[in-house]
């Protein structure tokens, strides 16, 4: 054998290899779990239970990246080397950003998963996304204050790219609509948030947008509550997975949530099918992402066979009915336009229930078109 | 002869593949001082450490060591010591980070009243420097502390490795006197290079050579017989005087330069 050999895709009846690189272990393991459950349900739904496209079986290879981009890149190279033409997954943004160029270099299809970073949109023509992006979150947040002109908005976020992206998006979306946006940033490791709560309180905003991740979130919410921030202004943040809801404690019912998805947010065919298929029967934040990814994979194989360029053609501009409702893959930058939700939590202690206040359509929450980079 | 307090039979020690002691047997009389003699590296320290159970982990000990009726080798060091086996190591091993007082307090043993007055009477320096860190003591002062630690308690047997090393002549004399007195009530197994001290203290002697016992018997016989001393210890009569004996003002004969070489 020569070192430059790679296995080539098989003939027509040969199975279609699909690689799923996502977090089975590590800090994002629960996101990964929802993603793969959703994916399997979606595959079932899109192939009508056969697991086949035409007479070709979809053969899944799952690889754990443990949240480490280096491992994800290794896995992607391994899969591509074995002739895989479609890779999906990426639970974390770091992984998505590093796998996307690999896909482009090797001309394979990459469908990013729960990774929320805006940078995946328009990363290159081989990269798609099956989940929402930060920008769509922010647009949903904006819907809480109606007319933004003259309003005062504060972004409260942790240092780092996630915080930067959210701050930039809020400035663009809400600031662009006439509000004055300022920000309070905390170190990612901060465990004591009183100083920041004091700063926010002193700023007297009309809307507080909170972008916070990690295990310090409950303490942060408690501090905002204790210092009277929650009762003095409208506070918006993203609704995380169900398991995290009880950690909001008393603060839970005082926050206005923007939601990517929660169980009961939609009642589509796909949602019903997904509910029936996944273990436990309760949908959660990232089930729709996996579900949509499977739908996109099936579409790509159906229309493109083994030809990646054809797959891309088939996906660009494609509209389909996903778990959340009507989804559109925007041809220009591969953004996935999708419904977004305003939600409220009620109840208390460990038994919160979420209810949708309002649904934004895919067009209403659409991000601006990004320049396709490669 | 009365029952020995300590009997060592066929003691054999290997460390890191080296056969350091090759079947050493001797006995320690229930009273008085028994000295263990021999050149550098013959295994004196190794013998003492094997008896108290401090052979390094990569070492292997064979043979029997009995104190009275009790076998020692299987018992952990701290038990042996609690039962009255006192050990003064060759390189002093004072706890450098602890003060002198703390070093002594650590040596107190449950059940006995520590004899501080005895120790302080012998080494007033230790009393004076109670709050000094032992690591900053002078070499000789550390040696005093190491000896003082073991004199604090009542012991049934003392193992002492080169106690007079690094001590000023005056202190050597004092330590020798103390050991002599101690030896009257507690048997001592002593490793010593200073033949003047040996001469004064020792009743029995054991001479090691290359990991084996070369001679045992009455110490005075050993020291009297020049031929024996020379062959066993490599010390001739004249050399003994010029190189080893504690000179006093009354030792002018050794002051001529180049006398012995």
């Amino acid at each position: 054998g020569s070192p430059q050999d790679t296995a080539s895709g098989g003939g027509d009846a040969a199975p279609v290899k699909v690689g799923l690189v996502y977090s089975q272990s590590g800090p994002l393991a629960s996101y990964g779990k929802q993603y793969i459950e959703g994916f399997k349900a979606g595959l079932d739904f899109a192939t009508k239970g056969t697991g086949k496209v035409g007479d070709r079986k979809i053969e899944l290879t799952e690889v754990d990246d443990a949240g480490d981009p280096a491992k994800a890149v290794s896995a992607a190279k391994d899969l591509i080397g074995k002739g895989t033409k479609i890779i999906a997954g990426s639970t974390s943004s770091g992984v998505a950003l590093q796998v996307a160029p690999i896909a482009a270099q090797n001309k394979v299809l990459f469908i990013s998963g729960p990774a929320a970073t805006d940078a995946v949109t328009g990363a290159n023509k081989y990269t798609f996304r099956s989940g929402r992006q930060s920008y769509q979150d922010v647009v949903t947040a904006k819907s809480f204050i109606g007319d933004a002109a003259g309003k005062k908005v504060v972004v409260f976020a942790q240092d780092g790219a996630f915080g930067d992206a959210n701050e930039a998006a809020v400035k663009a979306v809400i600031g662009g609509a006439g509000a004055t946006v300022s920000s309070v940033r905390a170190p990612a490791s901060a465990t004591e948030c009183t100083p920041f709560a004091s700063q926010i309180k002193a700023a007297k905003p009309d809307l507080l947008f909170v972008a916070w991740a990690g295990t310090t979130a409950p303490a942060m919410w408690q501090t905002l509550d204790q210092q009277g921030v929650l009762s003095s202004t409208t506070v918006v943040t993203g609704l995380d997975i169900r398991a995290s809801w009880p950690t909001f404690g008393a603060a839970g019912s005082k926050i206005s949530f923007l939601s990517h998805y929660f169980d009961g947010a939609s009642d589509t065919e796909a949602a019903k099918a997904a509910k029936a298929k996944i273990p436990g029967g309760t949908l959660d934040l990232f089930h729709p992402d996996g579900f949509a990814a499977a739908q996109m994979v099936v579409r790509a194989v159906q229309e493109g066979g083994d030809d990646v360029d054809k797959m891309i053609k088939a996906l660009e501009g494609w509209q389909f009915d996903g778990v959340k409702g009507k989804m559109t893959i925007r041809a220009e930058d591969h953004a996935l336009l999708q419904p977004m939700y305003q939600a409220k939590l009620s109840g208390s202690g460990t038994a919160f229930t979420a209810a949708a206040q309002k649904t934004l359509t895919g067009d209403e929450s659409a991000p601006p078109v990004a320049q396709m980079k490669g | 002869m009365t029952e020995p307090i300590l009997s060592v039979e066929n003691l054999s020690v290997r460390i890191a593949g080296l056969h350091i002691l090759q079947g050493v047997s001797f006995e320690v009389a229930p009273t008085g001082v028994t000295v263990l003699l021999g050149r550098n590296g013959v295994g004196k320290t190794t013998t003492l450490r094997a008896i108290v159970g401090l052979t390094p982990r990569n070492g292997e000990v064979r043979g029997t060591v009995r104190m009275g009726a009790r076998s020692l080798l299987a018992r952990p060091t701290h038990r042996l010591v609690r039962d009255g086996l006192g050990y003064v190591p060759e390189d002093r091993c004072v706890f450098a980070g602890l003060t002198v007082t703390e070093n002594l307090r650590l040596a107190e043993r449950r059940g006995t009243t520590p004899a501080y007055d005895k120790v302080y009477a012998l080494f007033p320096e230790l009393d004076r420097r109670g709050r000094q860190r032992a690591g900053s003591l002078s070499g000789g002062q550390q040696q005093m502390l190491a000896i003082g630690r073991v004199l604090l308690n009542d012991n049934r047997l003392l193992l002492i490795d080169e106690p007079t090393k690094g001590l000023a002549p005056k202190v050597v004399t004092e330590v020798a006197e103390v050991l002599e007195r101690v030896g009257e009530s507690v048997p001592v197994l002593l490793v010593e290079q200073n033949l003047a001290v040996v001469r004064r203290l020792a009743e029995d002697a054991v001479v090691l050579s290359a990991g084996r016992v070369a001679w045992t018997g009455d110490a005075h016989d050993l020291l009297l017989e020049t031929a024996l001393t020379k062959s066993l210890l490599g010390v001739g009569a004249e050399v003994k005087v010029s190189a080893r004996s504690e000179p006093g003002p009354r030792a002018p004969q050794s002051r001529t330069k180049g006398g012995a070489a």
Partner: protein
Amino acid sequence: MSTVILLTLTGLGLAALYFLVASGLSLVFGLADVLNFAHGLFLGVGAYATWWAAGNLPGAGPDGLGFLVAVAFGVLAGAVVAVLVELVLIRPLYSRTIEQVLVTVGLSLAGVALLQATWGADARPFPRPGWTRDVTSVLGAQVPNAGLLLIVAAAVVLGALLAFLRFTRYGLIIRAGVENREMVTALGIDVRKAFTLVFAIGGAAAALAGALGSVYFGTVSPGQGGSLLIFAFIVVVIGGMGSVVGSAYAAVAVGLLQQFVNYYGTSGLGDLCVVGLLAVVLLLRPQGLAGKVAHA
């Protein structure tokens, strides 16, 4: 004015948390000379055991006396785990410092993964008395009760540790044992028992920190210990390895510095300042603020 009071008191609360974590670390490091990277695991064990007890142990619960029982159970669990770790893993490696560090590193990886395998990666709400969620008004500042609880607990732990070191011989034995273990046994002391005891105390202190820290955070998660550990290490080193009082001073310095710089400066500057403080202290006084003396 009320801002300054608020920042000071919450900063002290943070300092108390750091001290609780650091005290056990400092004790084990200063006395037993083991740089214990598994300290975070002891923290986690304490937190999860308290959490478990509050839900399952008869007599324990999230409130009042039941909460005390739960915390006591957590502390006990931490101590037991620490003792096991010492007996099984550390003891056979004595005097091989680097290998001991490695074992604790391995343990921190494996232990946290085990917690995660058992209870999942996600944070769980922590049972706690209602009053810990409230605030107390001090001169116009709304000070969280959980922070005050931490301050009280830290003061108690500080007192207890000082008493232990001052009024028992163990401090002495262990300090000597670190220098030369053989020689301590040659003085007739079972040094191993003393080391186990120190681990037990370190584990108990860590577990208490884990339990009270979780009250403060409101949740318990497997990785929680690890993130606190870095600052605890910094506190231990600034304070002088092994000095409990030094750790207390250092914790206060670090907590207040972080709190005030984060408020008045830009964010992230607080952490940089703390690291800078560490570097400066070490360069000027390599032995730390208090030096290596375990009794004061």
